[in-house]
């Protein structure tokens, strides 16, 4: 008897629950999908607002909290006064020290470090010496074995030779760092020594 009753009750309750649930769950607006606004806008106030926003934004989805990469990891709390001060007044080894050994290069008048070669002059001298070497000794042609090899040998030795270097890496001038031209030395740029 009890089984029957429960079965009866349950059977009667199922359609009612489905209807209630369908009414309770709100319809989440799916942004970026095509929405047939004609039929739905009549009923819902929020969808009408969304339509206006999309039209104002030239067909694109409006600003929402989760539709972009606006949210980023941030510190949870503001660091206290004490913490910032302890960081700034940490031991001197961990800080970047100012360069005190800056002098005038006697060969070009630009700034250089004392006891170091002036890189501005070194570049000039190196290119000059390379040209000089080429004049005296002639061009030294270094041919790789790949160029002089027979076709059959190439296939056997270099079975899977591919050019794996990406295109943007081939233009070396774009990514190899270049030294900047140093400043012209002036005594005014230096920190004045403390008077005792």
């Amino acid at each position: 008897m009890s089984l029957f009753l429960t079965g009866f009750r349950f059977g009667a309750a199922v359609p009612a629950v489905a209807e209630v649930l369908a009414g309770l769950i709100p319809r989440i607006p799916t942004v970026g999908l095509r929405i047939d606004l004609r039929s739905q806008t009549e009923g819902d106030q929020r969808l009408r607002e969304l339509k206006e926003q999309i039209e104002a934004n030239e067909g694109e989805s409006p600003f929402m909290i989760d539709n972009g990469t606006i949210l980023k990891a941030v510190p949870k709390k503001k660091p206290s006064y004490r913490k910032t001060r302890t960081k700034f007044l940490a031991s001197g080894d961990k800080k970047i020290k100012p360069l005190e050994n800056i002098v005038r290069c006697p060969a070009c008048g630009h700034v250089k470090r004392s006891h170091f070669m002036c890189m501005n002059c070194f570049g000039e001298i190196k290119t000059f010496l390379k040209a000089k070497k080429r004049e005296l000794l002639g061009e030294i042609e270094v041919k790789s074995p790949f160029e002089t090899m027979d076709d059959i040998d190439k296939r056997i030795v270099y079975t899977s030779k591919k050019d794996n270097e990406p295109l943007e890496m081939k233009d070396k001038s774009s990514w190899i760092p270049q030294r900047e031209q140093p400043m012209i030395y002036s005594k005014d740029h230096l920190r004045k020594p403390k008077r005792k």
Partner: protein
Amino acid sequence: MASSRSLFSKVKRHHKSINKNLCANIVRHDYLVTGKTKAMRAQPKIESFLSKMLARDDELVKQGITDLDSRLSKNQHLNYVHEPLRKEIGSKVLTELKDRYKDRSAGFTRIIRLEPRLSEDKAAMSVIELVDSEFEIKYWFVAKVVARLQLQGLELDALTKRHVEKLTKLRPDGIEKFQNDVEIAKKQFFSYNEETEEVEDELKKKELENLPNNLSYNGGILGEALLASKKFPTKSRPSKEPSKIPLSPFLANSN
């Protein structure tokens, strides 16, 4: 600089091989741009290789062996270099470098410090070069310094004079050749036109206006003070008179 004594034998063997390769390549190319640590590690090895090679060769020549091939084969110090390079390196040492280093028994190399490399590791770099070579970087740097001072119309300061003296001392017709090279440096590095006697590039002209702070070092009152100690009142040593050894009384009697 980590001493290789404290490292594994694997690393130690690699370091030895690097030293040998640097030794061979500096003889080939006259100067190399390497890391500072590598250069400092290889320098004593290169020095001892060259001095031993040249000293042994002098012995062999005294014995009467003049053929180059037999001089190479009998020189055991050539075994320091890797085998396939021995003939090339050895013949260059015994022909070119032997002429160049007639009056030297040590001090064949020089290390110049450079700014750190512009890569991610920021490694300290340096140049290691053979002295008195045709492609000596310090020589051309000093030539550039002298050229600049001449274009500015200044006299040489004491430090530059000393550099010039050191660099030209053991070269054949050193001073004449240096003066020639200063003229080349003027053209090359300052775009100096000999006919009009003017610097053509405007940027270089502007750089030349940047004079040293204290001009009395360049032929003024402080001319000689640059090399003197600032801390202690030193005096230069008086010139040595040639000493006379008195004749032995026994010899005098016999004569």
